[in-house]
């Protein structure tokens, strides 16, 4: 696939600005905490700009680009600076380095948004391609099915995440059929086209659970809230974790193992 990531400089400093995403703000604090912990474990100083809200994607995808641009401008103001912006979501990261550029192609402050795009990284892309971490020290003795979320297409993220997961001791990374297929979330699509969204989601779930995983993993909790919601409705106890949670837990397991 043709790359959609901008030309980014490999950052010199390990100071990063964390964009936690609105889904972590509202539902998945555990994923955001894990993100902070693993970034710090590799020597990053994590700053959390307080004024942050959302990346602007809901309105952008809904076709309301006027509303979306307002939110993106707010984002640009809150995340001003030179530090890399690290996002534990392929979708929100792609919104800033790809979607926002579309929304601003005819705007006078396009250059500001381009500069923002050039500093924005999805978490595992930053770890592997930004910091050069090629393997993850840890133990995670479970079967994991990785959902390759769609908005990491054309970026280094899915490969980066799989590389890290694969390097974890005792982690059994399962094969997933039709890995290129969407889970059916699509933001507002999931509520304006509920029948399509459900049917696509149930098919995805079949593929993800085919090889009997202990956990599902994703870089996107948008997919997570949809897949997890379908699972819960089916009274399944299978959990969807953010990749960051697995990386963090693998580290903790490793420390326990060493101290024992």
């Amino acid at each position, binding site marked *: *696939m*043709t790359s959609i990531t901008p030309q980014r400089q490999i950052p010199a400093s390990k100071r990063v600005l964390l964009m936690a995403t609105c889904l*972590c*703000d*509202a*539902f*998945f*604090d555990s994923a*955001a*905490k894990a993100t*902070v912990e693993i970034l710090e474990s590799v020597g990053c100083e994590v700053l959390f700009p*307080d004024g942050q*809200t*959302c990346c602007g994607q*809901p*309105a952008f995808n*809904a*076709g*309301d*680009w006027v*509303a979306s641009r*307002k*939110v993106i*401008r*707010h984002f640009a103001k*809150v995340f001003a600076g030179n530090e890399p912006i690290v996002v534990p979501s392929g979708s929100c990261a792609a919104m800033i380095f790809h979607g926002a550029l*579309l929304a601003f192609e005819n705007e006078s402050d396009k250059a500001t948004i381009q500069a923002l795009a050039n500093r924005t990284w999805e978490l595992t892309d930053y770890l592997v391609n930004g910091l050069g971490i090629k393997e993850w020290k840890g133990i995670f003795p479970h079967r994991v099915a990785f959902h390759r979320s*769609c*908005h990491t*297409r*054309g970026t280094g993220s899915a490969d980066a995440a799989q590389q890290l997961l694969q390097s974890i001791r005792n982690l059994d990374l399962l094969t997933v059929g*039709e890995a*290129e*297929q*969407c889970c*059916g979330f*699509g*933001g*507002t*699509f*999931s*509520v*304006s*086209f*509920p*029948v*399509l*969204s*459900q*049917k*696509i*989601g149930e*098919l995805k779930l079949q593929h993800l659970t085919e090889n009997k995983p202990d956990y599902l993993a994703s870089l996107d909790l948008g997919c997570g*809230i*949809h897949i*997890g*919601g*379908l699972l*819960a*409705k089916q009274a399944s106890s299978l959990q969807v974790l953010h990749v960051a949670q697995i990386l963090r837990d693998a580290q903790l397991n490793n420390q326990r193992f060493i101290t024992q």
Partner: protein
Amino acid sequence: MKTFQQIDIATQELDPEVRASVYKTGKLKIETRQKVLARDFGSRTDKIRETAGLIKQHTLEHLDQYLEQAERVLIKNGVKVHFAADAKRANDIVFDIMRCNNATKVVKSKSMVSEEIGLVPYLESNGMEAVETDLGEFIIQIDDDHPSHIVSPIIHKNRRQIAKSFEREGLGDYNDDPSVITRRARKHLRNKFMLADVGITGANLVSAESGRIVLLTNEGNARFSMAPARIHIAIVGVEKLVPRDRDLAVFLNILTRSSTGQQLTVYTEFICGPRNPGQKNGPEQMHVIFLDNKRTEVLASECREILRCIRCGACLNVCPVYRQAGGHAYRSVYPGPLGAVLSPLLAGEQFPQLADLPKASSLCGACHEVCPVNIPIPDLLLRLRNKGKEMGVAHAQKGTPDMTAWSLLATHPTAWNTALQLGHAMNYTPESILNSIPSASAWLSSRSLPEFRGGQFRKWMKKRK
């Protein structure tokens, strides 16, 4: 279940057997495509897709120049060249050619552009006999149906339905063996080929350098339609041009591999002009009708990349929405991701009627990934959503939550944080009350919501400082 949009309703109503057939065919074609491209081109595949896209984009940006060049060389080759601004004009040109030559019988090859202009019904209503000769299109014609896929028009039918149609049309007793069905169609169509005055085709590609028209078929019907007929008419969308003969190779390498996973179609025709004095067979006259039909408007729009499309159908085959909804759900000649962009644009002033099509996508990008000419389809869908919103097309907005309040919150951090606190009420709200909010009920129809934990992360982060 709560549904808002026409495509969602069509999906709910689609016969599960049809859905299964569309899914199975799409999946098989995509898997074959992937295997063949990996085997033949490996990691160069994306480079070829990008190159093909650049050639097409270049041609589109110099379309006036390449059209003139093609016209000159086609005339030199002995072809009569016509330009049709719209569907009606194209149909009239065909009719006039037939009338001037006392022709009444047409055999037609598969061509999406002829579907677009409604050629067959037009000719039939004007007293001509027009027969579809592609097997799938022939079945569509006898059933008075519409294609639901641009390459596999009867992807929505099974052999039992086809056997019944053949029985009804007096083509033999009920028999659903595909080889029997094919033999019967072949026998029936052979007579039509032999008696036809005119063969009508589309064109997969046209070289502006030589005027060569490339026709790809697996059944040989395009070739056959040019054997006994006196007149060959090719109806060609203006976007089918490529600059040079050598460019044809790029597209021949990628088109069928993307479409059916074949290295080449069974028949590949390069047509330069009518029969020359030394040739025994072939049409005495050849006409090329270049069709605009809103294409120059698309060229002037922010979605011009869609004109690169070479109609391989890969985006339909891979699309999770198309696989569930089927082609007819798109209410237009071109379904799937390509159609969700092209159809509303070709509708011109009727754009609002189809403004819901660009919304019927999770923006997953699988279409972009497989596109042989690298069209960024999700970007174009997004531009059209913005256009629909700006035009205030109400039905396209159905089910989409209003973003005004959200954008207000998302630009005021204090209000945002308050909302994160207030949101906890959600955890105690009975589902029956949540269901009174349309988008909440749409969500809850098949999914539950996780516990709301607004502000928890911020609290934790503050404590660490």
